[in-house]
């Protein structure tokens, strides 16, 4: 199948279903519980990824309870079949534009009982075709609490399709839904309702109004609205969460909590995992290798410095990512995320970004990796790409350790101010690069007006949160593992190959390895920035893997003891100082500032790249690398050239 003719029956990844299995597509507006239903139906046998040729995320899985077998597709959220967004365009392409035989056997429109009329537009548009349909109504419990009662039989009669009430939050109604699906599949396809007459030169609004009129009639006949039993708790909380003064404060408190949880709470867990891999796992590996006679050979280097440290690095991200994904699910599920977008809209719009981009950018100051993953809260793909390209410019905590060391070597009296300045520079980078990208690449990206639906607050479900967390975490591990482990092994390999005779493979000091030769070859690039020595270059090259590694690389290169605390630079500090004095021709301060800014702006770490590849694809990740390296180099050179002439 070509990209221009997508088909639900094509092999678009996902879990293989036996041929002939009925294809069931889940459709519906965002936030109606569609993906929850999908997870419930398919259990573990599902796969979530971009539909081929699009950036639209589609889930696909096999439902098999022994009686029924369905190949279930979770279509992206769509209010209608009018292609106003890529999500809606794909939904339209798969349900309407393809030949009859390529359409799904059954479409389950998932609708929210608290706002049924909104879900019915899609039903109405699909009823204008002969598609077999089922309407699955969610959130019946919340609707009931709000005094809304729905007459299911009347609804079924008026719509002409089976209606099933489900409440995926509490696992009710699955049986009813399956019965409705069976009924729809067994029956003849429903007779199509005639589409509203299209007036010549009409922009479609008259047809839309005709459909909404039909929907109003259906809703008036089937939905009774008792007076709300109590003042809605949701409105009361919104008076705080959206107010001009307390709203931003509430938001900052929420962001502070996210930031704390992804840094302070995750740090000891990361530390423990790191200890586990550098301690017991490494000792065990060495013991085993000794026992089989490979101790001290290059095999030990490969296993310990390559494999174990690569896998260990990957796994230290697991607690951090788990916390981040759980928090995201919590914020989304509770309904607060929509409020946060309202609160930040004005400020973010001033720098040309949507309100929701605030969260990933804040998280980025803790760690870029979960921040990139958090860009998925942005509904618009271009906003997502732009934000994922900006996140690496937020200065993460790994970079902080290097700032502190360098600042206390060169500016011991003002180290705090220097570090603070780095954070300010980081914000300037995000704003300026954001404006530059919008002014060039995405000139057509309009500043969309704020129109956002505020779902009622609800108690997040633990099961759902854990489910979403696991789904996203395993996705991250699948994509990231290869990149991270491979890069760590490549660096180990370069460090193991001797360039002078007298050393064996894997037995060579770093300065005699192919790695040092490479660093020497690269070093002249940094000459105009004032730090073109191979020692500094080598540290920056390792920093491509992780910024934490910069300090240990310096220590290794100078064969100096790594300082116990980075504020007591000791002998390492003297070596670094001498190095910068020499490379900058006496303009040490200018070179140090150039170095710090380069360190801030260039590719943060290989895990960030892995996360970027997962969220925005390899092409944009490559663009991001080029963008960061060129921005970092240009600004560093500018700083040194100007600074050394002052």
């Amino acid at each position, binding site marked *: 199948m070509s990209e221009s003719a997508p088909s639900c029956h094509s092999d678009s990844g996902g879990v293989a279903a036996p041929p002939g299995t009925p294809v069931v597509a889940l459709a519906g507006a965002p936030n109606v519980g569609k993906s929850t239903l999908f997870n419930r139906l398919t259990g573990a046998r599902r796969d979530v990824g971009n539909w081929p040729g699009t950036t639209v995320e589609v889930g696909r899985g096999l439902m098999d309870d022994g009686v029924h077998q369905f190949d279930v597709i979770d279509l992206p959220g769509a*209010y209608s079949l009018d292609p106003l967004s890529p999500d809606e365009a794909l939904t339209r392409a798969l349900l309407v534009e393809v030949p009859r035989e390529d359409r799904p056997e059954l479409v389950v429109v998932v609708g929210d009982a608290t*706002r049924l*009329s909104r879900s019915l537009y899609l039903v109405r548009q699909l009823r204008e075709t002969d598609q077999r349909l089922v309407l699955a109504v969610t959130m019946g419990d919340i609707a009931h609490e709000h005094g809304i009662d729905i007459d299911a039989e009347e609804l079924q009669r008026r719509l002409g399709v089976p209606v099933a009430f489900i409440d995926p939050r509490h696992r009710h109604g699955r049986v009813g839904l399956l019965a409705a699906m069976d009924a729809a599949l067994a029956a003849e396809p429903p007779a199509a309702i005639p589409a509203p007459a299209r007036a010549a030169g009409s922009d479609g609004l008259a047809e839309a109004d005709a459909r*909404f009129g039909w929907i109003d009639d259906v809703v008036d006949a089937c939905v009774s609205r008792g007076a709300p039993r109590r003042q809605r708790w949701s*409105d009361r909380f919104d008076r705080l969460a959206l107010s001009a003064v307390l709203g931003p404060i509430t938001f900052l408190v929420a962001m502070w909590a996210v930031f704390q949880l992804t840094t302070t709470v995750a740090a000891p867990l990361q530390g423990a995992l790191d200890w586990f891999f550098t301690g017991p796992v490494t000792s065990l590996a060495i013991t085993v290798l000794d026992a089989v006679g490979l101790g001290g050979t290059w095999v030990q280097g490969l296993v310990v410095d390559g494999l174990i440290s690569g896998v260990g690095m990957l796994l230290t991200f697991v607690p951090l990512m788990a916390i981040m994904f759980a928090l995201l699910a919590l914020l989304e599920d509770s309904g607060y995320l929509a409020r946060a977008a309202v609160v930040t809209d004005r400020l973010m719009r001033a720098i040309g970004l949507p309100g929701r981009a605030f969260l990933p950018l804040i998280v980025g100051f803790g760690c870029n990796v979960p921040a990139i993953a958090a860009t998925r809260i942005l509904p618009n793909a271009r906003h997502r790409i732009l934000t994922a390209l900006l996140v690496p410019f937020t200065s993460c905590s790994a970079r902080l350790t290097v700032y502190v060391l360098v600042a206390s070597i060169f500016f011991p009296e003002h180290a705090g101010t220097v570090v603070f300045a780095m954070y300010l520079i980081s914000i300037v980078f995000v704003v300026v690069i954001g404006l530059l990208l919008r002014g060039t690449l995405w000139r057509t990206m309009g500043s969309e*007006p704020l*129109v956002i*639906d*505020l779902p009622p607050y609800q108690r997040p479900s633990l099961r759902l949160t854990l489910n979403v967390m696991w789904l996203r975490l395993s996705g991250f591990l699948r994509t990231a593992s290869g990149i991270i482990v491979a890069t760590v092994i490549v660096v180990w390999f370069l460090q193991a190959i001797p360039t002078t005779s007298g050393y064996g493979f894997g037995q060579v000091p770093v300065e005699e390895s192919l790695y040092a030769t490479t660093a020497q070859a690269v070093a002249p690039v940094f000459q105009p920035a004032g730090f073109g020595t191979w020692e500094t270059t080598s540290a920056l090259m390792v920093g491509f893997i992780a910024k934490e590694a910069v300090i240990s690389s310096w220590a290794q290169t100078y064969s100096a003891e790594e300082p116990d605390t980075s504020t007591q630079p000791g002998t390492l500090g003297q070596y670094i100082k001498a190095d910068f004095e020499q490379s900058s021709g006496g303009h040490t301060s200018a070179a140090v500032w150039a170095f710090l800014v380069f360190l801030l702006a260039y590719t943060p770490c290989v895990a960030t790249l892995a996360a970027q590849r997962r969220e925005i694809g390899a092409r944009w990740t490559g663009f991001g690398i080029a963008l960061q390296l060129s921005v970092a180099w240009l600004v560093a050179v500018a700083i040194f050239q100007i600074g050394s002439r002052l």
Partner: protein
Amino acid sequence: MARTVRDLSVGERAVLDAPQLEPGLRMRLAEMGVRRGEEVTVTQRGVGGARILSVRGSRIALDARTAARLPVQEQAT
């Protein structure tokens, strides 16, 4: 000058007239229930001038500029 949603005070009910917006946005709002003939209430003026509308039982947040493009019908009170 016709009154718009932006001019409504908090708690005031009004019936919407045809939105003065480009078709895509107008459609999106119509799907959310914000369309000609619907009764709306501004439940809150939020941060940055955003208006929170109550329409058919759901809550929609709009920025002030969009609210100013939503005229309301004059009512005989």
